[in-house]
């Protein structure tokens, strides 16, 4: 008798679980984006503020259009496919996991709504006066005087970003590890701008200035 009762209970539990899974409505929009963000957390952190040890940038609060553009580039090998781009190699396959229509838009919508945080400087070197000259002569055209970027020019906000990440990206653009594809029009533009920086010192100077912008 007791055995039959146990068997009945187990059968009821299995059937209930099956019916519950059938009736679960797939999430959409930002709620779906929040689900997808679980795959971003291991590298970009719970709050999306990045991780220096993993060389992952702060993404919380970035504009959704910029996130969509970049994830699409990773997915299409326009970014992260250079054999030397170690960090890009990590991001590229994860971008490929966003294969359902709307996945990229949903996760971008969620990330763009996350609270942004100004990342404090980590470099001790960098001449802000010299960097100011470069910034106001070159970068300002697209990234604007406040470093908040310009959607019409497809330039992202940089004022809040970690300085180590910005210098690393300048290096990548300079070396052709980013902005290498003729199909990546805006990346190509940025590569041309990065090539105006003569050396590593010039990169540190301009990023040191960026970190002085109001936030």
């Amino acid at each position, binding site marked *: 008798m007791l055995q039959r009762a146990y068997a009945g209970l187990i059968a009821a539990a299995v059937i209930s679980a099956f019916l519950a899974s059938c009736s679960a409505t797939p999430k959409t929009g930002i709620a779906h984006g929040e689900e997808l963000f679980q795959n971003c957390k291991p590298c970009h952190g719970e709050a999306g503020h990045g991780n220096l040890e993993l060389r992952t940038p702060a993404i919380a609060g970035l504009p959704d259009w910029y996130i969509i553009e970049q994830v699409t580039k990773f997915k299409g090998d326009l970014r992260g496919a250079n054999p*030397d781009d170690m960090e890009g*190699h*990590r991001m590229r396959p994860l971008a490929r996991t966003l294969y359902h229509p709307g996945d990229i838009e949903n996760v971008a919508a969620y990330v763009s709504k996350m609270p942004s945080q100004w990342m404090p400087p980590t470099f*001790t070197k960098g001449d802000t006066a010299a960097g100011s000259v470069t910034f106001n002569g070159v970068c300002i055209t697209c990234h604007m005087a406040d470093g908040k970027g310009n959607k019409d020019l497809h330039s992202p906000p940089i004022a809040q970003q970690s300085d180590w990440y910005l210098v690393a990206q300048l290096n990548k653009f300079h*070396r052709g590890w980013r902005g290498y594809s003729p199909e990546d029009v805006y990346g190509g533009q940025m590569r041309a701008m990065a090539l105006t920086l003569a*050396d590593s010192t010039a990169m540190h100077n301009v990023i040191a200035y960026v970190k002085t912008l109001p936030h």
Partner: protein
Amino acid sequence: MLEHYLPRASSFAGDIDQLVWIIAWIVGVWFVVVEVMFFWLMFRFRKKPGVPARYITGKEKHLKNWINIPHNIILVLDVLLIVAAIRVWVLIKQTMPPADHTVKVMAQQWAWTFTDPGPDGKIDTPDDVRTTDEMHVEVNKTYHFVLESMDVAHSFFIPAFRLKQDADPGRAYTGWFKPTKTGTFDISCAEICGIAHGVMGAKLVVETTQEHTAWMQAHAADAATADAGASAPTDSTTAQPASQ
């Protein structure tokens, strides 16, 4: 039959398949025999009215043979399996036929980078052709590969070649293969290596000599151009903060 589902595209793929078949047949047949015996014995000596259960010690020779004979058969089959496995191991892992080409394979989270030596046949020279997630080789040529990992444990797996080799950071593994069939085949990572392990795939393109030469020339020219244009600053790309 295996070839029907997964093409054999390397010189030793048939040997691996043969070993798999030997193991599958021996273990499979033995499994069926044991299960038939097991269920037959259960049925034969099932509970019957008026027949009391009794404990069998197994000391009598005719009963002990039920253990001894299968035991000895298993030992003989084990030796057969070991001989077959060692033969394949020596053929593939202990023997390195002279190489026509050597390629470098670098694994990292979560991509494969392949370095072909280019027209000069030497790795780490300006005409090297480096590709990400795409490996081009020439059919009927013997390749040595030098496999390394940049970060964590990976496993270089080419199912069509029946080739699988672990890669651990800090160690260079040398192996070989000889493609025997042209076409495009999968490369994947067969060692859990992080969140994107499942999508750490690459493409293997086995080409004819003419196709491979054309590919090589096109990409060697690209490599030379890229090398000439490299004017990177001295800092590392990851730009370690000075204060860290």
